């Protein structure tokens, strides 16, 4: 079943509203609010990694393109976006030695939320010696979107994780800003049981006005963060700095606690996306997945 076929059966009202230029997003009644997600466990067999168990619910699917050289999963939201009250849960587990990459078919659109926020919960568990690249496409916050996200990682000391997330504020092609909104985003990363990194973003109220201030965004419309955690991660700081160099976005990197973190900030989401793709490709030495 193709992704397009899947798209047609879920919440066409929202999908059309999102793609129709300048059309206001309709209020969505509570009964169509979506709950769903994907759960996948990877394991090795015959020298290759395979998705051992896959569970899909709500409007979410995961597909594994056959032509991919590594085990590559693409998460698809057939609803075409999320609104207030929606909940998405992604649960990924890698058995010892497994190697996988996960991405998303499209940017995730976060529509205006009336009462409850949109909620995203991601849990990544990496067994001994496993390797995961978590590279979803960006989230686009529409004006008055409210997003609460919790991303937790529990990884073995010798596992490797490369994680990149990016957020765009407003449909910038339409000149939209996130005048009001909420972004409550917390990542908690444990390595060998030890809490090594917590990223806690809390941005609410007059988002665009806040982002205009110099210590906050300096007029930023897009943010991205790359985290790389691996036994040799700190030794790769200069690789990350070299990979970042030459872009249009403001960026920087640091290494501590066995991890490398890079941050990108930009007023032009398209330029930031290009910088992010180039940085990740250079740093990993591999092309981005096809949908990017």
């Amino acid at each position, binding site marked *: 079943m193709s992704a397009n076929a899947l798209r047609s059966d879920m919440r066409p009202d929202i999908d059309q509203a999102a793609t129709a230029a300048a059309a206001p997003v309709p209020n969505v009644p509570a009964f169509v609010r979506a709950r769903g997600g994907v759960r996948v466990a990877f394991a090795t067999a015959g020298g290759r990694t395979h998705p051992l168990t896959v569970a899909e619910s709500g409007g979410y699917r995961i597909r594994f393109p056959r032509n991919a050289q590594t085990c590559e999963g693409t998460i698809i939201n057939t609803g075409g976006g999320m609104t207030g009250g929606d909940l998405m849960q992604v649960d990924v587990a890698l058995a010892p030695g497994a190697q996988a990459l996960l991405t998303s078919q499209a940017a995730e659109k976060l529509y205006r939320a009336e009462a409850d926020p949109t909620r995203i919960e991601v849990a990544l568990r990496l067994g001994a010696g496993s390797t995961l690249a978590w590279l979803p496409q960006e989230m686009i916050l529409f004006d008055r979107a409210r997003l609460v996200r919790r991303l937790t990682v529990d990884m073995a000391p010798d596992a490797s994780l490369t994680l990149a997330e990016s957020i765009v504020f407003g449909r910038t092609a339409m000149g939209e800003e996130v005048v009001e909104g909420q972004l*409550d*985003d*917390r990542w*908690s*990363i444990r390595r060998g049981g030890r*809490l*090594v*990194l*917590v990223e*806690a*973003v*809390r*941005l609410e109220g007059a988002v665009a006005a*806040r982002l205009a*201030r*110099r*210590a*906050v*965004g*300096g007029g*930023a419309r897009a*943010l991205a963060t790359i985290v790389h955690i691996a036994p040799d991660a700190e030794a790769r700081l200069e690789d990350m*700095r070299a990979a970042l160099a030459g872009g249009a976005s*403001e*960026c*920087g*990197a*640091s*290494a*501590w*606690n066995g991890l490398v*973190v890079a*941050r990108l*900030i930009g007023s032009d989401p398209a330029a930031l996306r290009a910088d992010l793709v180039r940085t990740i490709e250079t740093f990993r030495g591999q092309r981005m997945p096809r949908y990017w």
Partner: protein
Amino acid sequence: MGTTTGEAAPAGASPLLTLMTWLSPAFPVGAFAYSHGLEWAAEAGDVRDAASLEEWLADVLAHGAGRNDAILLAVTHRAVTTADGTALAGAAELALALATSRERLLETVTQGNAFVLTVRKTWPTPALDLLRETWAGDVAYAVALGVAAAGHGLPLVQTLEAFLAAFAANLVSAAVRLGVVGQTDGQAVTAALLPHCRRIAAEAATAELDDIGGAAFRSDLASLRHETQYTRLFRS
């Protein structure tokens, strides 16, 4: 000395005098060596006069380390007051994990460890033993201050106000040394920041760890950029 948990300040000293001493630039934690990324912000031209300095620091206080550290201090203070070792260890662990760069981690743990060392020798309190029993790692500055303040019965809101004011004044002092503003303008900026300190202290006093979070993205970026800055006066 007889300094036990719940007693009001070290013998013979008021809470005010204790806080003034602990948060004085003369207290040997080395605060003067850290600019919290301000040195890069000055280099980049984001902070270039009194107005831009005040705006930058107001956001660092309200949406950056100021508010987050205040919440960590408050949670620590409450954990010691109720002898809750689990909550204390949780705050101590989170405080380190929240560092946004290598230099931010250095900034908080060198001051925190130095503070614990000095207070243990000069203002001993069983609260520091509780910390040692429940947390074996480095100690973030806000956590160290929260433990000591609770151990000596110093009131939480005043401790938070003094902590935030000292943080702001230290960064204004850094800006003066960087030549961003003169002494008089620097004091005017500090004066303008004090109401922010009071507001954030009041909010943080009842906040929980889940309330932590910030949006000082370009301040965090400045801290990253500072690592490769060519000429540096400061360690962060």
